[in-house]
Structure formats: structure tokens, C-alpha cells
């Protein structure tokens, strides 16, 4: 399958064309169109965007909020950086359409502290849109008003989790909240709030302009649309690739030029690790997590070093609220070093750690602790040199 450039197409729709069309529709029809497109959130969790917007639109409460999650902290992900750099017009237009759809006049972009150099591009796009009456007061001369501000994070991966992000915006420690209530009912300052990924918003103008039928024609089955993938590691041409949802990982690696593949980390450190024998698997919500990060390892790499690096990341980034996540990642890191250094005498010794991994998945409050053991389970069972041979527990 070749690349399929929509979001990153050379020729982009004229700024404001989608917004004009949306403002000519009822808010409910805009939500309906997005829902019919079948688009699921591009930030990883894959919640259907139209359903989220519908819930927020129906929620009672004043001062509804549109929040863009530009915290992009998953190791190996950089596709939102590209969108913020080059397509912030489409992002802001998508947020404005979202504001119209749910009845909000205020947006916030939560930008990770590592991307401060992107602020000027975003602010310039905002000013251009205001000058063209496509943002700000009385958009296109009508009654609808919408504006955005950019707020910087301060270096915490967990703040990409939407309730933690909201806590951070409220001036608190970025510790994930208990759900319910969900942000669509009670989010930023208790207001009904939608949080969507950068790429999700960038899709919106395209869906509105071309219609949900067109969108459903992209991708495979329920996995509609195109998807951006950030490819790094042992490839000839690292970078961002746009493919139809449901493409295989092998197709993506062919584009990026990968040889002598040992393993691929799909979906970032919190994603899953596959081996060279699994390249027919698809990037979709039904198979390999299509969040966007794809890191390739050739046969020269020691996968236990890779695992150590991921677990060090999780130990550092756990917010510490739940014991399984706070302590569990430390234990998994310890035993990973033992395996690497040949200090494991038998496979039996590892059983407790696989049990611990299960407990972490079940007993952690947010996605960080629930997914951090994946890399341990995958790499140890598929790729580690253990007493008596490779992998297999």
C-alpha cells in the first residue's frame, strides 16, 4: 500500500472553507457528520470522536471547553510536532469547528514544555485566522465566537493522560483523576470539556469538507481514515508517514526502509513489541496500537537494553499515586537488569514478575501503569536470552 496523504497533502483546502461549511449546518449536524465518519481519537485510546462531542454537547454546564492535547510524550512519537509546525491552521480550524459543534467559545492547546519553539507558528496561524474573521469575535460576521490560548506543560509524560492534563491546567500536580465523572461532564474547572489529540482536530476540516462517506472510504472497516506514524530507529528514512488505517506494519517499514529487523516497538514504550515474524499484522484499533510511534530494532541491538530504557522511562514518569505502578515498574526494571546480566538461574524465578505484570495491568488507575508492563512481557517472552534458550515462559 502506498502512502495516502490527506492531512499532509501538498495541497491543503483553503483556510476557512470547512468552517464556513460547518457554520452553515446545525451544531447537531456537525457532530453527526463527525460521528458518521467513524473517526476514533488519534491520541491512542481510540474513543470515537463524534460520540465524545455528542456527550459534551448534551452535557449541562456553562463555558464548555475545547482542549487540544499537544503533550506528545510517548517515546518515539513526533507526528504532532509536524502537524503543529506545518498544519496549525487546520488544527485551529478543527478546534473552532469543535467549539461550534459542542457550544464552546474557548479552546486551550496544552503544549509540552519540550516544544516551546512551536509557539510562534501556532500564534501566527491564530492571528491569520483572526485577521480573516475565522477566529475570535463574531466569526464570519455571525454570532459565534471562539478563541484559543496556548499553555505550556512542564515536563511530565503522565500529563498527556487527559484528566492529568486537566489537573495540570488547573494548577495542580498532574495526577490522573478517578473517572467518572468524565471530562465531557466535568472537566476543566468543572466545565464540560472535550480533550482531543492534535491529529484528531486536524482531521476535522477534511471530514467536514469532503463528508463522512468519503472518510469511511479511507481505511479498513471500522478503522476509518488515514493515520500518521512516526518512524525512528534502525531505518533508512526515519520520519512521519501517512497511511490508510489498517495498513500492515510491513508496508510501513518498506516505505521507511528497514532491513535485518529483529523487533519493532509499536505504539511507543507503552505499546507492544513484535518480532520480524509479525510484520503482516495491521496498524488498527483491532490489532497493533496505531497511536503513532514505531521504533525499529535491527539484529545488532540488545533488546534487554531497550527494555531497560523503557522501564527507566516508566519509573521516572509514574506519578506515584498507585502502588502497583509506582513499585511495580521499579521491580520490573530490577529483574530486567538481572536477566540482561545473566543473574537469573531459572525460568521459575520469573513467574512472580509475570504475575506482577498482570497486577499492574489490573490494579493501576491510568493507562501508564496499565500498559507499562507490556514491553516487559513481550520482550522477555519473545526475545530474551533465558536459561535454556530464547524467550518463551
Amino acid at each position, binding site marked *: 500500500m502506498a502512502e495516502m496523504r490527506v492531512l499532509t497533502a501538498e495541497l491543503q483546502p483553503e483556510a476557512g472553507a470547512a468552517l464556513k461549511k460547518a457554520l452553515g449546518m446545525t451544531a447537531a449536524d456537525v457532530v453527526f457528520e463527525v460521528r458518521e465518519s467513524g473517526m476514533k481519537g488519534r491520541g491512542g485510546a481510540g474513543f470515537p470522536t463524534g460520540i465524545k462531542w455528542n456527550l459534551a454537547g448534551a452535557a449541562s454546564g456553562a463555558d464548555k471547553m475545547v482542549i487540544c492535547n499537544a503533550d*506528545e*510524550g*510517548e*517515546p*518515539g*512519537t*513526533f507526528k*504532532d*510536532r509536524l502537524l503543529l509546525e506545518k498544519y496549525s491552521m487546520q488544527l485551529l480550524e478543527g478546534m473552532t469547528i469543535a467549539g461550534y459543534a459542542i457550544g464552546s467559545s474557548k479552546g486551550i492547546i496544552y503544549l*509540552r*514544555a*519540550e*516544544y*516551546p*519553539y512551536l509557539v510562534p507558528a501556532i500564534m501566527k496561524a491564530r492571528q491569520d485566522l483572526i485577521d480573516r474573521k475565522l477566529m475570535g469575535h463574531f466569526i464570519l460576521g455571525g454570532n459565534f465566537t471562539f478563541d484559543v490560548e496556548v*499553555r*505550556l*506543560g*512542564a*515536563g*511530565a*509524560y503522565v500529563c498527556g493522560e487527559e484528566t492529568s492534563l486537566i489537573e*495540570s*491546567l*488547573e*494548577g*495542580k*500536580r*498532574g*495526577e490522573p483523576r478517578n473517572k467518572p465523572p468524565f471530562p465531557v461532564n466535568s472537566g*476543566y*474547572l468543572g466545565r464540560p470539556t472535550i480533550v482531543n489529540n492534535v491529529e484528531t482536530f486536524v482531521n476535522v476540516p477534511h471530514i467536514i469538507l469532503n463528508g463522512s462517506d468519503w472518510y469511511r472510504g479511507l481505511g479498513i472497516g471500522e478503522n476509518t481514515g488515514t493515520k500518521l506514524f*512516526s*518512524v*525512528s*530507529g*534502525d531505518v533508512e528514512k*526515519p*520520519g*512521519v508517514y501517512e497511511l490508510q488505517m489498517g495498513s500492515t506494519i510491513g508496508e510501513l517499514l518498506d516505505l521507511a526502509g528497514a532491513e535485518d529487523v529483529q523487533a519493532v*516497538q509499536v505504539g511507543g*514504550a507503552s505499546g507492544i513489541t513484535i518480532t520480524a515474524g509479525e510484520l503482516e499484522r495491521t496498524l488498527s484499533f483491532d490489532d497493533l496500537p496505531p497511536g503513532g510511534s514505531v*521504533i525499529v*530494532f535491527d539484529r545488532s*541491538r540488545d533488546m534487554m537494553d*531497550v527494555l531497560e*530504557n*523503557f522501564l527507566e*522511562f516508566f519509573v*521516572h*514518569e509514574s*506519578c506515584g499515586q498507585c502502588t502497583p505502578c509506582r513499585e511495580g515498574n521499579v521491580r520490573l526494571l530490577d529483574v530486567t537488569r538481572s536477566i540482561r546480566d545473566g543473574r537469573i538461574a531459572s525460568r521459575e524465578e520469573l513467574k512472580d514478575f509475570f504475575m506482577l505484570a498482570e497486577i499492574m495491568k489490573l490494579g493501576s488507575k491510568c493507562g501508564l501503569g496499565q500498559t507499562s508492563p507490556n514491553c516487559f512481557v513481550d520482550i522477555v517472552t519473545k526475545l530474551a536470552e533465558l536459561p535454556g534458550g530464547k524467550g518463551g515462559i
Partner: protein
Amino acid sequence: MSRNPVDIVTSAMEKYGSGREAIMQMLTDVNRELGYIPEEAIRAIAAAVGVSNAEIYSVLSFYSFFSTEPRGRNIVRLCNTISCRMAGAGDILAAIEDELGIRAGETTPDDRVTLETTSCIGLCDQGPAMLVNDTPHTRLTPDEARRIIAGLQ
């Protein structure tokens, strides 16, 4: 001469208001201008938004970009995540440590540079990469890294 911490908080308050939701922006402004967040600033922010000093401390200690210790005039953050590591971040770290005569996590005695390693900074396609203050530097070689570090004032 850098501004007094209380003045920075006062102008931040004028820009962002004095609601609790302004805390991150106030902390960011102080941290950017002074390189760290001194106790005077913590007290001023606490008074501005009407929470305890301990509460402000609790918030700021959560975030790795905020510091309560004075840091160098320049902050170098070298990415330590796997894609940059595979591209040679280890050699870059060794070169910078050698150039500065300090280890990661330390500040040069003349307060010129603080060196830190950091989680993924989203430049994985152009590694090894680092941020020097707000500016990204990509596809580093050890020589290039030394040159950049030597040029910092």
C-alpha cells in the same frame, strides 16, 4: 541583571490573573527567567492565588522542568530515550560531560551550563537530539555538540 522574583510574579499575575489555574504559567515565567523557582517566588505565588506555600511546592516538585535549586544560565537537555540512544546519544553525553567537566545533573562552577538528560523530546527522526534552552539541536555529532556547548555564554 535579572528581575526580582516578586516582580516576575506580579507581572505574571497581571497577564494570567490570580486564579489557581494561573499557577503553572506563573511558575513557568519564574523558572524561565531565573532558571529556577526561589522561595520568595513560591511565597509570592501562594499569596497571589490564596493557597499555602506547601501547596505551591507540591505542584512544582511534580514537574521535571521546574527546579527549586539555582541552575546555570543555559540548560542543556539531552534526550536519553531509545531512538536517540541508538543514534549515538551516549557518545554525545560523554563529549558534553568532557567539554564541561561535569556529569549529567550538574551545573558548571561558573554557572554557565546545567546539563540534564531527559525523556523523549519528540525529535526521534533526527537524533541524537538535545534542547539548549528553547532551541532544538538535531543530528548531533560529538564535535558538533562540543562546538554548541563551547559557544554558550
